[in-house]
Every structure is written in C-alpha cells, then in structure tokens.
C-alpha cells in the first residue's frame, strides 16, 4: 500500500472522529433536534470499506450512518445542515441524522429500520447486473440484522442470482443495550452467510488496512461475477447507543470492557503504526488535525447560516 493511501486512510478515520466529537459537543445546545447514533470507535470499518470502492459503487447504510456517509465521500456540510434541519441538508431537513443521502458519490441512503436497507442494496446490485454496469454495492449492517428475516431473504436472493454485492457486518456485540448472546445463539454470524451460499470472512474491524485489503478482494470478486461476498468485522461502540454521551453509568457493560474497547482505538493504533513506519510524523499529524478542524467549523457555520424550511416545504414531494 502506498504511503499516500495509508495517510488518507488515517485522515479519513480521524475526520469522522472529529466530526462526531464536534457533533457530540454541540448536541447539548439542543439545536440538532433529532436522534443521533455515533460511530466513534468503529471508524476503521467505514473507511477501510469505502477506500476499496470506486465513486460509482453504491453504499446503503443504517441508523449509524455518519461514518459510512463521510467515508464514501458524502458532503460534510450537507450532513451537518441535515442534522440542524436546514434546507441545505442532504434531505432538506426531512431526515435528520438517521436519513443521509449523497447520490453524487453513490451514497444511496440510510434509514433506521433495522435491516430495512439491506434488500434495497441487493436491489441496487441486481440493477447493476441487469444493466450490465460494473458497479458493486455495499450493504452495511449491524449484528442485530441477523435476527431480521428480511436480511436472510436478501442473502438468499443475492446468492441465488450471484449479485455484485458486499455485505459488511459491523459486529459491535450490541443491539442498543442488549448483548448478542441474549439475541442470538452461540454461533458465528459469518457462518449464516456461508450457509446461504456465499464466501464469508470474519476479521478484526479495528485494523483499517486489513479491512481495506479484505474488502478489496471481495470487491474484485463481486465485480468479476463471483457473486455476493460477506465480511464480518468486530467493532466496539464507545458511546451510548443513541445520543452524544458515554454511558458507563448505565452499567450494562463493565468499565473494564469499555476501557479495553477504547484501548483498541483503530485511529490510535494506526497512528502509532504510521508514525513508527515513518509514513507519518508529528507535524503531518498536526497538519491533518488542523485541516479537519477548519473543515468541521466551516460545515457548522454553513449549517447554521442556512435557512430554515417551513411546513410549506413539507407539503412538497410526497409524490414524484
């Protein structure tokens, strides 16, 4: 991997982190009046996956969408404006954090019904195959999705027609406050995909290079007619399920667990690697931080300066 590629993997992760930290901080002002699910701690997956994609490739996401959206190249200002409910938001304010879209970069949409976009991603891959375009589609899905029947239906159909889709499972072991072992029997998730007839791999989702290289292979397979590919990545959600805060006080997971999750920070880990290998130095780091800081405050300024929609706007576009 080129040094430049490594640096962009790193800064893409850092950018997502900083954006979300800024969102978390400013959420308390109560001007972003919508539910928000942060992906802090899980950035390596979003970034590793999207780095292996072309702009024309498609991505479908879920309630925890910020990272996917940004990694795929989604417009930061339009995202922040969306959280502030402004007309310049990527959905004109109609969606909020749980509904992001940027068709220009192949980010097809995110919605919060668990598993809800998975069959849509399959449909997108199906369309590519019908139209004969070379695009692949990525479906980001949480560990919770494997309890939803529609996800199995999606796996079955994509395997049946050997569609160019890559399922990326972000396994953070939780659905809200419920651990996986209270929702699923003791068996690996990727085996489900395997049983549906597609190649499946499980790996550490905190290692951005590993994520990216696995996805690169999967994309190549999918793009070359070898059908759907499945990747399961471990991850750890640092903050509360929904909202900006940490949630140690709820005690549904131990402080040790949270600490060990945070100690496995994909960004710190990668920074260390890059510093050690000389691919990055302290100054470059500072430069990246500064650049991100500038971009983030510009996005907030843009959002706050944007005009507010009214109920009149809300009457529009019920039908195409």
């Amino acid at each position, binding site marked *: 991997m080129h040094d430049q590629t490594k640096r962009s993997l790193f800064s893409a992760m850092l950018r997502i982190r900083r954006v979300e930290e800024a969102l978390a901080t400013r959420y308390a002002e109560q001007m972003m009046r919508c539910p928000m699910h942060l992906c802090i701690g899980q950035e390596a997956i979003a970034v590793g996956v999207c780095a292996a994609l072309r702009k024309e490739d498609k991505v479908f996401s879920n309630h925890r969408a910020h990272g996917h959206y940004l990694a795929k190249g989604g417009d930061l200002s339009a995202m922040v404006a969306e959280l502030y409910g402004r007309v310049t938001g990527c959905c004109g304010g109609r969606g909020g954090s749980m509904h992001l879209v940027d068709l220009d970069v192949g980010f097809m949409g995110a919605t919060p019904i668990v598993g809800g976009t998975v069959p849509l991603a399959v449909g997108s891959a199906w369309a590519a195959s019908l139209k004969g375009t070379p695009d692949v589609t990525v479906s980001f899905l949480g560990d919770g999705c494997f309890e939803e029947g529609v996800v199995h239906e999606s796996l079955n*159909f994509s395997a049946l027609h050997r569609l160019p889709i890559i399922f990326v499972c972000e396994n953070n072991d939780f659905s809200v406050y419920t651990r996986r072992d209270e929702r699923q029997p003791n068996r690996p998730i990727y085996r489900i995909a395997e049983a549906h007839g597609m190649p499946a791999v499980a790996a550490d989702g905190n290692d951005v290079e590993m994520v990216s290289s696995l996805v690169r292979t999967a994309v190549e397979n999918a793009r070359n007619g070898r059908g759907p590919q499945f990747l399961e990545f471990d991850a750890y959600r640092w903050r509360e399920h929904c909202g900006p805060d940490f949630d140690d006080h709820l005690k549904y997971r131990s402080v040790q667990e949270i600490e060990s999750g945070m100690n496995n920070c994909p960004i710190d880990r990668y920074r260390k690697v890059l510093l050690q290998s000389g691919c990055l130095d302290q100054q470059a780091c500072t430069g990246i931080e500064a650049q991100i800081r500038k971009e983030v405050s510009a996005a907030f300024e843009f959002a706050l300066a944007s005009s507010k929609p009214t109920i009149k706007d809300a009457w529009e576009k*019920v039908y195409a």
Partner: protein
Amino acid sequence: MHDVAERQLTFAEAIRESLDQAMEKDSRVIVIGEGVPDPKAIFNTTAGLCQKYGARRVFDMPLSENGLTGACIGAALSGIRPVMIHQRIDFALLAMDQLVNNAAKWHYMFNGKASVPMVVRMIVGRGWGQGPQHSQSLQAMFAMVPGLKVVMPTTAHDAKGMMIAAIEDDNPVLFIEHRWLHHVSDNVPDYYYRVPIGQARTLHEGSDVTVAAFSYMAFEALIAAKSMSMEMGIGLDVIDMRTVRPLDVESVLTSVRKTGRLIVADTAFRTGSIAGELISQVVEQAFSFLKAPPVRIASPDFPTPTSPFMAEDYYPGPQTIADAALDLMGKTKEADGYRRMSAVLVRKGPHDAPNREFSGPF
C-alpha cells in the same frame, strides 16, 4: 363508451398485453413474482413474456415477499422499473414494512432526490373456498399510506390503460386485481394507451342514486343498474372509482349533487374500509346536498369462511345494491317491477365461482 375499438379482450388478456407492450417500449421494465414464468403464468397474465423478453427480464422469485419488495425498491432507485406480482394480496402483508416504510416514503424522506417507480400487482381471491387467509380485500390498508398510489380497475380497458399508466408512474403503484374480473371482457384497443390514475369513470348514468363502487363491486353495481333501469325505471349513477388513492372525490360529489343519495360499495370488510373514508369525505363536502344518510355496502366484519354454505351469503351482490337504492328512495319491495328485477338478478350458477352470465363488454 370509450375509444372505438372492436377488439374484445378479457381483463387477464388486457393485463398481459399491457405488460407486453410496456416491456417492448421500455427496456427498463421487468416482471417478477412467484410463478411468473411457470406454466400457469399468474392466471395467464404473464404468459409468453419470459419466452419473449428472456429470463433476465421476467423472473420467478423466491418466497420472500418482504425481501423481494425491498430488492424491487432498490432496483427502482437504480433505474429499473419492476412490476412485482403477488398471486394473493394476503401475501403482501409480509411486505408491509418495505411498502410502507421504504417504498412510500423514500422519495419524500430524501427530499425528492430519488424515486421508486414500481408496480405491485396484488390479486384479491374469492370463491371456491379461498377461505380466511386467501381472500382479503386489503386496499384500505395500503390506501391510508401517503406516498403510495393504489388502483383497482374494473374493466379490461382500464386494466390495460391503468397498468401502462402505473408502469410509467414514477411512484410506487399498487395494482389490485379482483380475481373474478379476470375473465370479463371489454373493448380493448390494441395500441399502447394510458388511463390516468386518480380519475373515476361513470359506468352507467342515472339521476336517482349515486353508487360509487370499487373493483368487482362496480361490476355488480352495473348489473344492478341495468336491471333497475329496465325493470323499475330507476336510475343509478354508477361510478367506477378505479383508483383508491388518490380518491376521485370530485366525481362522486358531482354525482351526489345531482342525485342527493349515495351508496358506496366496496369489496372489503365493512369497518375501516375505504368506503367509510369516501362517505366521510363526501359528507364533509356535500352535506347539504344529501337527502338521506349515505349507505355503505361491504363484506361483513368477520374473516371469509371456507365452507360454500357459509360463503353463500357472505358477499353482497347486485340485489344488495338494488335493495339499498330502493331504501334510499323510500320505496318498498312492493314497488312496481321489483319482482321482475329480482328475478333477473338472481344468480343462476354456483355462488362461489365467477358469474359467467355477464362477461362483458362494459
């Protein structure tokens, strides 16, 4: 009555032809559903399509109603125009999530950036012991969802034209077919034409009572209207609603302003039916024109029993409509011609198979 064309097709044939012509015209159109390319070809409405357009555009489908609805939505978002088929509307209950949460809302949620041009054909079963899980008329359940369009054509002519309009529409359109209309024929032009979604159509003119009817009930109302007019000199204004969402209330209002009396006849369970919605809208807007309270004709509020002996009196028919019209006019069964009319209306064949006595054209 409409375009002059001597050619007669059944409703089922008209559907087939509309799919054929739409696929011919627009290579983005695909057809998918359980059994689409099988020997029975969805009551013959998809016959030959797979042979003509190939297995890449005409699909069978796994038994995955919700997942495949989602896949069709995803394909529609990506430039394909899917026509999805459920042999029984009851199976579509499995797909409510995708229809209501995604198909209906995607265009709206994403501020009009994308749209979901898809058609879902859903067939309402009836007769020969279809029973509780295979004969529900669920139109109101879909019609209450903003973002969906719901059509229920009655004639073969409209079936073709509305199917084409539905396929060309950039929104999700649920196309509900009553199984007992499939064999009924009508003048159907052989060219490619549209019948607009959202417009009712008068099937029979009269100035005594307005009968706004949906799907098969419009067929039954027409039978009632003809006999009433012939034998009793009573004029029913039969409006075939054709679309369930958006409702063409205007056409009903116009008629009610003339007749002052309204019957709404629906194929669904009475309570919560779209008939109630229509009555409510008419009353809200034309209260002062009404000479009597509107009347709703629908199926009783219990699941459809299988036994032919129970199903026999389950469905309202032309006689029910005629009796309600008489009532509204304050006439009794002693009225002149009533017996003659009833003698005409009496079903001759078995009650649980489609009426072959009148099989078109409209």
